[in-house]
C-alpha cells in the first residue's frame, strides 16, 4: 500500500470502523481523547521545563502558574481518567461476561470528562486562575491575585469531571451486581462481597477444601475497590468545589465572605485525605489490578497467590483512607500522633502492598516462561519498574526527618510523582492499550513495530531520566512550585528538558503509529454512530 492509502485507510486497510459495536467505539473515543489530553500535558510539561531553564518572555509568570495548575489536572482527569474509565467500562462487562449496565451513562461519563477538562483548562488558560491542584486555603478565594469569574468556570469544569466520575462508579457497581434481562437472578450481595474482597479475606482463614468460590474475577475486584476511592475522592472534591464556589460567587455578587471562617489546617487535612484517595488508593489499586489482568492475559496462567493478592487489595483500600498525613509532615500544627501513625507507619504499608503486587505479577510471568517479548509485556515491565523506583522514593519522603529537607523540592515531583505517573502508570496503560488494540479494532494491525520499539525506549529513558535529574536538583535544594531567574539549577533542568523531549518524541511516534494503523478515515469513523446493538461488547463474528 502507498503511504497515502495507509494514511487514509490504515495498515493494509484492515480497520473497518463500520464494523465496531457502540461499546468499542465508545472505548476508542475515551482513548483518543485521553491521548489528546496526554499530548497537551506533554507539551505543557515541555513549556515548563524550558521555562525552568530560561523564563520565556512571551509567557508572563501568571500564565506559567496557570499551566502549572492545569498540567496535573489535565493529566489525571483528562488523560488518565479517560483511558482508565474507557478501558474499565469495557473490561468489567467483558470479564463478568454480561452487558454493561448502562451504555447511556457510560456515554455521559465520556462527555462530562472530555468537556469538563476542556472547560477548566480553558478557564485557567484565559483567566490565569492558578491556585494549583492543592487549592490551599484561602488561595482559591484570593481575589487580589485571581479573577473570580475564571475561578467559577474552573471549578465548574472540575465539577463536570467529578459528575462523570460518579456516573462511572455507579455503572461499575451496577454492572457487577445487576441481573440482565432474561437471566436468572444474580446473587448481588455475594457478588458485591467478592468484589470488595470479603471472600478473599475469609478464604485466608479457611481450609483449602472449604474456601468459597470467587464470583468476581480479580481484576474486576481491583476495579471495584479502586472505584470506592474514586467515589470518595469525587465527593471530597465536589464538596471543596462548592465551598470555593460560595466564596467566588459571593465576591461576584458584591459581598466578601471572611476567609478565616474556614480553618486552613482542617481544610488541608480533608482535602489531602480526598486527594490521596487518588494518589495512594486509586492509582495503586487500579494499577495492581491492571498488572494482574495483564499478567494472566499474557501468560494464560492463574495468578500467583491469588487469595493474598485479593486480601492485599483490601488492605490497600483501608491503607489509602489513612495515609493522608504524610503530606502534612512539615505542618507544625499537625498533631504528632497523626504524623507518626498516619504519615509514617501506615504509609509504610504502601511499600508492602505495592511490593506484593510487584512480586505476584513477576512470579506469574515467570511461571509461563519462555514468553515472547511482546509490546504488552515490555510496557508492563516498564510499568513495574516505574513503581519499583517511585514508591520507595515516596516512602523516604514520608519520614519526619527526611521530609524536613525534601518537602516541596523537585525530589517529590521528580523521582516520586513523575516516575510513578509517567513510567509506572502510563507504561502500564500503554501495555493495556497495546494488548486491547487488536480486540477493540477487530484485528487491525499495528503499522510499525520499529516505532513501537522506539516508543518504549524513548518513553522509558525519558521518564526515568527526567525524574532522576529533577530529583538531583531537589536534593540540591531546588523547590517545586516556584521560579528561578538566575540559572541556579540550569544544568539539571537542561538535562531534564532533554529527557522530557524524549517523552514528547515517544508520544509522537506512538500517536503516528496508531493513526497510520487505523487511518484517518478510521479515526473519523470512531466518532460516527454504530448501527450494532449497544448491549454487545464485540461484534458476533469477532467473539
Amino acid at each position: 500500500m502507498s503511504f497515502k492509502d495507509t494514511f487514509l485507510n490504515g495498515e493494509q486497510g484492515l480497520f473497518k470502523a463500520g464494523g465496531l459495536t457502540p461499546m468499542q467505539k465508545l472505548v476508542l473515543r475515551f482513548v483518543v481523547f485521553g491521548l489528546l489530553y496526554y499530548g497537551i500535558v506533554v507539551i505543557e510539561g515541555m513549556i515548563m521545563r524550558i521555562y525552568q531553564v530560561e523564563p520565556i518572555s512571551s509567557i508572563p509568570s501568571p500564565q506559567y502558574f496557570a499551566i502549572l495548575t492545569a498540567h496535573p489536572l489535565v493529566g489525571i482527569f483528562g488523560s488518565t481518567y479517560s483511558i482508565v474509565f474507557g478501558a474499565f467500562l469495557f473490561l468489567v462487562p467483558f470479564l463478568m461476561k454480561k452487558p454493561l449496565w448502562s451504555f447511556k451513562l457510560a456515554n455521559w461519563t465520556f462527555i462530562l470528562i472530555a468537556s469538563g477538562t476542556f472547560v477548566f483548562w480553558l478557564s485557567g488558560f484565559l483567566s490565569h486562575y492558578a491556585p494549583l491542584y492543592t487549592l490551599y486555603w484561602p488561595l482559591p478565594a484570593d481575589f487580589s491575585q485571581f479573577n473570580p469569574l475564571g475561578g467559577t468556570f474552573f471549578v465548574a469544569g472540575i465539577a463536570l469531571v467529578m459528575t462523570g466520575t460518579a456516573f462511572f462508579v455507579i455503572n461499575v457497581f451496577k454492572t457487577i451486581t445487576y441481573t440482565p434481562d432474561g437471566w436468572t437472578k444474580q446473587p448481588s450481595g455475594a457478588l458485591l462481597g467478592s468484589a470488595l474482597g470479603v471472600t478473599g479475606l475469609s478464604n485466608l482463614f479457611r481450609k483449602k477444601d472449604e474456601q468459597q468460590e470467587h464470583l468476581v474475577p480479580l481484576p474486576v475486584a481491583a476495579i471495584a475497590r479502586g472505584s470506592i476511592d474514586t467515589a470518595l475522592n469525587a465527593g471530597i472534591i465536589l464538596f471543596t468545589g462548592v465551598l470555593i464556589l460560595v466564596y467566588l460567587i459571593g465576591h461576584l455578587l458584591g459581598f466578601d465572605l471572611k476567609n478565616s471562617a474556614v480553618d486552613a489546617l482542617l481544610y488541608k487535612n480533608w482535602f489531602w485525605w480526598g486527594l490521596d484517595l487518588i494518589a495512594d488508593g486509586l492509582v495503586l489499586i487500579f494499577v495492581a489490578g491492571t498488572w494482574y489482568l495483564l499478567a494472566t492475559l499474557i501468560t494464560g496462567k492463574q495468578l500467583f497467590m491469588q487469595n493474598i493478592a485479593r486480601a492485599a487489595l483490601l488492605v490497600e483500600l483501608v491503607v489509602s483512607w489513612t495515609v493522608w498525613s504524610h503530606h502534612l509532615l512539615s505542618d507544625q500544627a499537625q498533631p504528632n500522633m497523626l504524623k507518626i501513625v498516619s504519615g509514617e507507619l501506615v504509609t509504610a504499608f504502601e511499600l508492602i502492598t505495592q511490593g506484593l503486587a510487584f512480586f505476584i505479577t513477576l512470579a506469574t510471568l515467570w511461571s509461563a516462561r519462555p514468553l515472547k517479548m511482546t509490546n504488552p509485556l515490555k510496557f508492563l515491565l516498564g510499568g513495574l519498574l516505574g513503581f519499583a523506583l517511585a514508591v520507595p522514593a515516596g516512602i523516604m519522603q514520608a519520614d519526619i526527618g527526611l521530609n524536613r529537607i525534601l518537602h516541596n523540592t523537585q525530589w517529590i515531583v521528580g523521582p516520586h510523582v513523575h516516575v510513578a505517573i509517567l513510567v509506572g502508570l502510563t507504561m502500564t496503560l500503554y501495555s493495556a492499550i497495546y494488548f486491547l488494540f487488536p480486540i477493540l479494532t477487530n484485528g487491525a494491525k499495528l503499522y510499525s513495530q520499529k516505532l513501537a520499539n522506539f516508543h518504549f525506549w524513548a518513553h522509558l529513558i525519558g521518564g526515568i531520566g527526567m525524574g532522576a535529574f529533577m530529583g538531583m536538583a531537589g536534593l540540591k535544594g531546588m523547590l517545586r512550585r516556584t521560579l528561578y531567574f538566575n540559572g541556579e539549577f540550569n544544568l539539571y533542568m537542561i538535562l531534564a528538558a532533554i529527557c522530557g523531549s524524549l517523552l514528547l518524541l515517544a508520544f509522537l511516534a506512538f500517536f503516528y503509529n496508531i493513526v497510520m494503523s487505523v487511518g484517518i478515515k478510521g479515526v473519523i469513523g470512531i466518532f460516527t454512530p454504530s448501527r450494532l446493538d449497544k448491549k454487545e461488547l464485540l461484534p458476533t463474528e469477532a467473539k
Partner: protein
Amino acid sequence: MVDSQVVLNGQTIAYTCYAIVMILLVGWFGFRVTRTGRGNKVSHALFYSFTGLLVVLGVSLHIITFNTIPWASMDINRDGIKPDKVFDISVENHQFRLPSEKLVVNVDDKVLFNVTSADLTYGFGLFRTDNSMLFQMQVVPGHRNDILWQFSKPGVYTIRSTEYSGPKGAAMILKDAVKVVAR
C-alpha cells in the same frame, strides 16, 4: 547537630544504589523471562520472605532516621525544650516581616523560629549560599508554625517561602537574612 547536607548525601547514595539495582533486576528479569529454564515455579517461602523484608524495610527506615537524624526527635519534643533564642516572624501580602533586618545567632544555639501568617498559606525555609536547603516548614494561617533548629557551623542563610502562594510567592526571598557566628 549533624548538618542536613550530610543526611542528603547519605540519601543520594542509598537511593542511587537502590535504583541501579532495581533497573538491573528488571532488565535481568526481562531477559530471563524470554528464555527456557528450569524452576518456573516460585516458592511460597520466597514470597513470604520477600513480604517479611518489606515489613522490616518499611518500619526500620523510620526507626533509623528517628535515631540518627537529630532534628527529628528535637522537632517532636520541641515543646519541652527551652530555646536559646526566639524569633517571631510574621508574613502578610507575600512579605516576610523580621524582628530585625538580620537575624544573628551563635553556633550550637537552639533557635526557635515562630512564624505566623495573616492571610495565605506560605512556607518558611532557610537556604545556604549555594541554594541548597537547610530546612523548611509550612506556614498555615490561624495556626502556630514553629521550628526549633540548632546550627552546627557558622554561615549565612537566605529565607525563602517554600510553599506556593500565587504567582507573587516566587519573589518571597530575603537574601542572607540569617547569620550564624562562632561563639
